């Protein structure tokens, strides 16, 4: 009998040679091996991570390069033999074992495009439960779980759904926001590439809950691989009768469409995304009306992040209480954190809210990859704040981070070493806003340009005190008068960088470096 070998076909793993490794093993192993394409386990520094099924469980080898294949066979890795790349049983690797894998339970475990495998690991259980429940009951369950929007805003999902359910309209829509543009975040991508059916299942449940029979997944064009996997997953669900008319033999209908963005960060903002889905410029719209009342094509629409939707099947199958038992305070459940930047062990870490920055960065992350001291971390993407090692005891939750002057956003954590110029990062924040502003409101469109210029003046030593005042004023204005989070939160990285490292904002860069 052939030995089962699990190799991720996740784009991060592929980016460091997973495909070549798989080909190498296939060529050498022939009929002795059966290669199964999975998602990534999220231990990205070990990618390409090759797992071999043994009677004791899956044994991991990584990072494997094509030239290691011969020595792996020599070491009898098909029987779990010893090798310098052997990491032991995958599920006993502390990085993995310590996690609370709920949303990501199947990612890296199952063949990402096998519905059979999906069902064997608890897939479709939530949907089957939902099909026998009333919409009101589904919404109540989601409300009770305490699930909040994982895209960044943290709005209670159940309340959003309740609002949409209350609308009387023949046509409603449910949209998955897969425009994961924040630097340092890749959980949506990993989920779509590793367990696409869970997102689709969550959307069908959401559709049933609010009375929507049409759904869209809006994926950014920078994720070509995720787009391909999602398209294949939709096709597989259609063929199996889980999408389309009378899904799963019930009276429910649901059609799902994949749409591709075109390189605009702002389309991650929900009103902008909806405009883009209508084939228009991705310009932000004034709220109210909120999309749950009038969204896509002016119909009641739910926009939820990929992670939010992919968590719904778990809540329906295991119960709201099981989910709500994780977490702290008003931050219930788990958050798939993404650790990146200059870090030794970067990857995906799904933990209950309440874990500290220290645990994530130093225990999971193992400090910097370069070996230099950590200077700061940025949490929550390009609009998130910088926090210093003195603040690492802060626990990660919506409220606790906000009290520390930051935000959890989509759960991305980027580590910077001591060579980082915070002046440069602050300037970059303004530059990024200038580049990606949709242009609708003045504080964002012009404020970002002026912010960049003012920071340049400060860096050049040009009337520093007065320009710091100007910058402060400008940040106030952007925060208070911008229509959406793009302009409103750009000051956050700028201000937190200035607050933590005031000495870098006092004049020429060379002087500050001394």
């Amino acid at each position, binding site marked *: 009998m052939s030995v089962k070998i699990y190799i991720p076909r996740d*784009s*991060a793993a*592929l*980016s*460091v040679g997973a495909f070549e490794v798989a080909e190498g093993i296939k060529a050498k192993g022939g009929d002795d091996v059966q290669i199964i394409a999975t998602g990534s386990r999220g231990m*990205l*520094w070990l*990618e390409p991570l090759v797992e071999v099924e043994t009677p004791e469980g899956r044994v991991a080898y990584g990072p494997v390069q094509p030239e290691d294949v011969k020595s792996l066979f020599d070491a009898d890795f098909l029987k779990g033999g010893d090798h310098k790349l052997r990491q032991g049983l995958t599920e006993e690797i502390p990085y993995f074992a310590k996690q609370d894998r709920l949303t990501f339970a199947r990612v890296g475990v199952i063949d990402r495009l096998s519905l059979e495998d999906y069902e064997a690991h608890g897939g479709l259980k939530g949907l089957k439960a939902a099909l026998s429940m009333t919409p009101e009951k589904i919404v109540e369950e989601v409300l009770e779980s305490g699930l909040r929007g994982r895209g960044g805003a943290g709005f209670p999902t159940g309340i959003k759904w309740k609002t949409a359910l209350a609308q009387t309209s023949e046509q409603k829509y449910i949209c998955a926001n897969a425009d*994961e*543009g*924040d*630097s*340092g*975040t*890749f959980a949506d*991508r990993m989920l779509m590439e590793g367990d696409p059916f869970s997102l689709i299942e969550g959307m069908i449940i959401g559709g049933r809950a609010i009375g929507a029979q049409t759904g869209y997944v809006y994926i950014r064009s*920078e*994720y*070509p*691989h*995720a787009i391909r996997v999602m398209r294949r997953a939709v096709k597989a669900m259609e063929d199996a009768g889980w999408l389309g008319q009378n899904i799963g033999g019930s009276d429910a209908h649901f059609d799902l469409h994949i*749409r*591709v*963005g*075109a*390189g*605009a*960060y702002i389309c991650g903002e929900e009103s902008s995304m909806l405009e*883009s*889905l*209508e*084939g*228009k*410029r*991705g310009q932000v719209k004034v709220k109210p009306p909120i999309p749950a009342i009038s969204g896509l*094509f002016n119909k009641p629409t739910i926009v939820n992040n990929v992670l939010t939707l992919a968590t719904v099947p778990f809540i329906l199958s295991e119960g709201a209480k099981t989910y709500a038992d994780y977490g702290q305070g008003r931050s219930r459940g788990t958050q798939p954190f*993404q*650790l*990146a*930047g*200059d*870090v030794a062990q*970067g*990857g995906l870490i799904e933990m209950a809210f309440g874990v500290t920055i220290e645990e994530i960065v130093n225990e999971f992350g193992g400090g910097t*990859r*370069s070996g230099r001291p950590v200077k700061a971390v*940025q949490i929550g993407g*390009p609009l998130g704040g910088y926090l210093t090692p003195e603040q690492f005891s802060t626990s990660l939750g919506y409220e606790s981070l906000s009290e520390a002057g930051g935000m959890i956003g989509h759960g*991305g954590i*980027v*580590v*910077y*070493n001591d060579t*980082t110029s915070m002046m440069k*990062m602050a300037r*970059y924040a303004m530059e*990024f806003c200038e*580049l*990606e502003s*949709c242009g609708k409101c003045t504080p964002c469109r012009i404020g970002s340009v002026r912010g960049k210029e003012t920071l340049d003046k400060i860096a050049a030593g040009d009337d520093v005190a007065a320009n710091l005042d100007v910058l402060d004023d400008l940040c106030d204005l952007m925060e208070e008068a911008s229509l959406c989070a793009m302009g409103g939160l750009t000051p956050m990285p700028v201000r937190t960088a200035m607050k933590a490292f005031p000495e870098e904002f006092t004049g020429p860069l060379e002087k500050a470096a001394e």
Partner: protein
Amino acid sequence: MVTLLNTVEDKFAREICRDHGDKSDELLEILHAVQHEKGHLSDGALRTIAQALNISRAEIHGVVSFYHDYKREAGAQFTLHICRAEACQAVGADELITEAETLFDVKLDGGGEDVALAAAYCLGNCALGPAVLVNEKLYGRVDKAKIKAIAAQHMAQNS
């Protein structure tokens, strides 16, 4: 007879519109499909799309100019999209960009005949940066040697 519109139809663009049911909400998909095949969006193609979808050329111009992905002119044979977002900056993306500019003798976002370099803002490979995307293929832990090899490989495929 006076023709107010140039009626020379771009057959490929017309076909794509038809595939999408001539629906204006599918404009982004249509533009992607045309650009994927032709490399850029020509005047003729945009005019044809406007007619097929029954929207104004001004509206299409608004959309095409809003999104970073759409190109109005034929570009280089292939483009290396180098990520310069924060996580990649933290592991030396700026240095990689400078090295690549010297290596290929082109400027970032400055065009080029064979190879062009374009800034990308997050490719979702943040734990394995610096990241580069070429022809929909993603690379991680890219350094000077690796980017040279990537370019050579794609150049060989193209010729």
